[in-house]
């Protein structure tokens, strides 16, 4: 009778309910195991794929539902894919690996907030963090983590770059973010007299003459590398024959950048000297790799340094004084064209505070220049003709349209509000991590096998059930690790997980020892199971609580690697309590119905 079946379905008897619970556990196991065994870079998934496609009949079984598009009428149709066609590594989530496992770098910076008023420090630090985040994102790091913290009175910014191996360029990228400053004239600055200026100019004429001579030698077919070795004043490249490899756009000063990326073909030498803040360059483009944003070039150059006031014995006395206005106050930078001359200029728009500061600054300095510094170099020193109250400033530095655009982009990507210094770095190569993962997996596997053997040999039937529960436990924990937001596996974390396998057994052992006692005292099996569980529960709860407390403290105070350990252990302990109390218990109750289970031998009880 259908009604009867239905009522049985919805109001199951005691035995029926047990079946449903076991069924639910099985579903959870299959689901979590599926989550565990899929995803990119998953060794298990690859092995399963391989194994399945090697079994002749199974691999052709069409069991995976699959929506296919019919190209004729553009409708979607439900079809079936065979096991062979399914690639488990393209489904599901990957395991997130920490820095020590996938390689990468952790950088810790001190932020110098001494120039910032106390009330604004927090926002300045947060602003710096945002800027570094944007910079790091530009590096193409998959999931960068940038965090700020106060250590005593020192503000810290820590940057975790997983999968970044060229840490040197990452450090440069972060450190060389444009530092935008506004400065006013220093009345006490040392000015060169006309005679000194002439002396300097004469010296630089000689430098230029020497440079031209070498340029002629290059043009006459001289060996560029050898000439660079002989003449170049760039200590960083001189010994390599002037060579810089894998240069990205934006890495060098704008004038240099423009020549190597826009004006030269591979193999060519630029026909003129190129003048930058460093001096005169002779530039040869060697080769180009990639295109568009990923374009990199190998380039050689010979540098002739121009002389500065320091070279004629005059200590550079700060010409400019700091003001409170800085890149922190920048809301946005845009390229505009002067309405009359059509010359490109970069317009800076300030936030409210910046607008006020700029208004004060221009009011106080009418008739005097204000210098706009980028990375410590003055890029524009406009003279203030009248106070500017609108919160906008123009940088008019004889830019080409492209230069103006690049500058605006760099400024928008973020001017660092405060200077930062690198105080610690930790870098792990990719291979080291891979070896560690592999070793830990092997260790975990054997650990599980040994524990399973021990449990089965010592506890017999309940031991077998505990091992089943342990498998469910492993499947659930791994799935939780994947699904838990922000969780990453570290080496210590894997240790924590493997340790928790050992601990997961603990709750089972507590219960089984109780069960044995109850059986010894002559209780029948089902009653013994119920009593055993309820008696063991207080011990399990109280004893695990202490481990959870230490996990909590470790998580609260520890560095990110230790956090990983604490979190894995804590998740492991919680899931293990669930597995022992719910899963093992249901298994035992199920088995208790079987006739064979009445044999005392199966419980290892001596009479």
């Amino acid at each position: 009778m259908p009604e009867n079946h239905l009522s049985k379905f919805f109001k199951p008897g005691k035995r029926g309910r047990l079946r449903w619970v076991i069924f639910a556990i099985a579903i959870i196991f299959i689901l979590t195991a599926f989550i565990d065994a899929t995803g990119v870079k998953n060794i298990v998934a690859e092995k399963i794929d391989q194994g399945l496609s090697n079994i002749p009949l199974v691999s052709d079984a069409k069991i995976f539902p699959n929506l296919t598009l019919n190209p004729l009428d553009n409708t979607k149709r439900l079809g079936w894919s065979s096991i062979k066609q399914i690639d488990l590594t393209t489904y599901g989530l990957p395991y997130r690996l920490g820095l020590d496992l996938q390689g990468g770098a952790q950088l810790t910076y001190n932020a110098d907030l001494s120039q910032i008023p106390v009330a604004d420090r927090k926002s300045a630090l947060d602003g710096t963090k945002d800027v570094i985040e944007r910079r790091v994102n530009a590096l193409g790091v998959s999931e960068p983590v940038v965090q700020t913290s106060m250590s005593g009175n020192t503000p810290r910014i820590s940057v975790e770059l997983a999968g970044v191996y060229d840490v040197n360029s990452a450090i440069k990228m972060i450190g060389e973010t444009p530092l935008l400053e506004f400065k006013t004239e220093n009345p006490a600055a040392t000015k060169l007299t006309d005679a000194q200026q002439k002396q300097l100019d004469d010296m630089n004429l000689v430098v230029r003459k020497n440079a031209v001579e070498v340029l002629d030698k290059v043009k006459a077919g001289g060996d560029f590398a050898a000439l660079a070795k002989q003449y170049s004043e760039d200590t960083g490249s001189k010994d390599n024959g002037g060579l810089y490899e894998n240069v990205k756009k934006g890495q060098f000063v704008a004038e240099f950048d423009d020549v190597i990326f826009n004006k030269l073909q591979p193999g060519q030498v630029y026909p003129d000297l190129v003048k930058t803040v460093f001096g005169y360059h002779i530039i040869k483009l060697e080769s180009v790799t990639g295109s568009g944003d990923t374009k990199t070039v190998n380039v050689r150059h010979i540098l002739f340094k121009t002389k500065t006031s320091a070279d004629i014995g005059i200590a550079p006395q700060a010409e400019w004084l700091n003001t409170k206005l800085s890149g922190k106050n920048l809301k946005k930078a845009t390229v505009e064209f002067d309405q009359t001359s059509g010359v490109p200029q970069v317009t800076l728009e300030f936030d409210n505070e910046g607008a006020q500061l700029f208004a004060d600054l221009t009011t106080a300095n009418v008739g005097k220049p204000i210098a706009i510094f980028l990375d410590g170099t003055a890029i524009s020193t406009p003279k203030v003709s009248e106070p500017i109250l609108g919160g906008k400033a123009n940088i008019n530095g004889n830019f080409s349209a492209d230069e103006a655009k690049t500058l605006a982009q760099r400024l928008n990507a973020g001017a660092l509000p405060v200077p930062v210094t690198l105080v610690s770095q930790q870098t792990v190569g990719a291979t080291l991590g891979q070896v560690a993962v592999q070793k830990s997996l092997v260790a975990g596997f054997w650990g599980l096998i040994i524990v399973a053997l021990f449990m089965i040999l010592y506890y017999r039937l309940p031991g077998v059930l505990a091992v089943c529960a342990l498998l469910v436990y492993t499947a659930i924990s791994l799935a939780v690790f994947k699904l838990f937001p922000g969780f990453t596996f570290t080496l210590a974390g894997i240790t924590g997980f493997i340790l928790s396998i050992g601990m997961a057994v603990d709750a089972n052992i507590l219960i089984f020892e109780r069960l044995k006692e109850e059986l010894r005292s002559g209780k029948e099996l089902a009653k013994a199971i119920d009593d055993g569980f309820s008696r063991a529960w207080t011990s399990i709860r109280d004893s695990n609580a202490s481990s959870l407390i230490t996990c909590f403290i470790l998580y609260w105070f520890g560095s990110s690697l230790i956090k990983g350990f604490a979190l894995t252990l804590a998740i492991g302990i919680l899931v293990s309590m669930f597995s022992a109390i719910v899963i093992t218990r249901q298994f035992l109750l199920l088995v208790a119905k079987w006739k064979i289970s009445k044999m005392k031998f199966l419980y290892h009880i001596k009479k």
Partner: protein
Amino acid sequence: MKLQIIKNRKYYYFFSGALFLIAVLSLIAWGLKPGLDFTGGSQMELNFSASRPQVTEVQSALAPLSLGQVIVQPANNQDIILKFKAVSEDDHQKILSAIKDKFAVNGTAIKENQFDSIGPVIGQELLNKSWTMMLIATLAIILYIGFAFRKVSKPLSSWKYGVSAVLALAHDLIIVTGLFSILGHFWGIEVDSLFITALLTVMGFSVHDTIVVFDRTRENLSKFYSGKYDEVVNDSVNQTVVRSINTSVTVLLVLLALYVLGGDSTKNFTMALLFGIFIGTYSSIFVASPLIVDWNNWDHRLKKK
């Protein structure tokens, strides 16, 4: 078969006392060898695809860079570990190129597997943090045990269980730390933040074990408090000893697998856990319970006077 743990407690006291004394003496005489993350400094791990240079060769290659003391250790088959003061990224690149210039010849490729440079300030901070962590963990555990045993008051009040558990815990931690002091003195094994993590984990585990034993005492006292206190405690220890040992055995087995098969960088961590959990199980059976018995006897003697 019944173990006479309470009766024979003076042997265990003696054994534990001896270990404790050795540990304390070693800590006083030799102290611990702090790792890079506490002292600050740099550590660089290089892999050489072919012939690995001699220690003195590496040192002389780096001499012009005036790095101060440079410790060079060969590791595995083709690796070299360099230790020196904390350096800037520029200096790091200089060191790397100095080594590559000198030794990356005849087809030898040099790969930098790992580079850590930790400013001395950071190290000091981590050390302070570790102390805070230990302190807070100990306090939290004392509070927790006091809470867990709040209902037991006869014949011994609940806080005395807590103090006994913490004494057993201190015993475990001091002995493990002492072991690392000896290992540090003779084999140069360093104590880093992972070691602190291991200590805290051992803390959790050791108390966990002790609680199971005390919990049984609590239950037995409420059930049949008629026998002598020391007998009840001895029974409780006997009833839980199999569980204590089996639990530790499973954990020790997985740790052993990790120690033998796992990665090098966590070997010391695993060893600290192995030893700590072993000694923690020992103390929960042979130290913690005898302590509460003696405390009870002491109370009685005071009352009689």
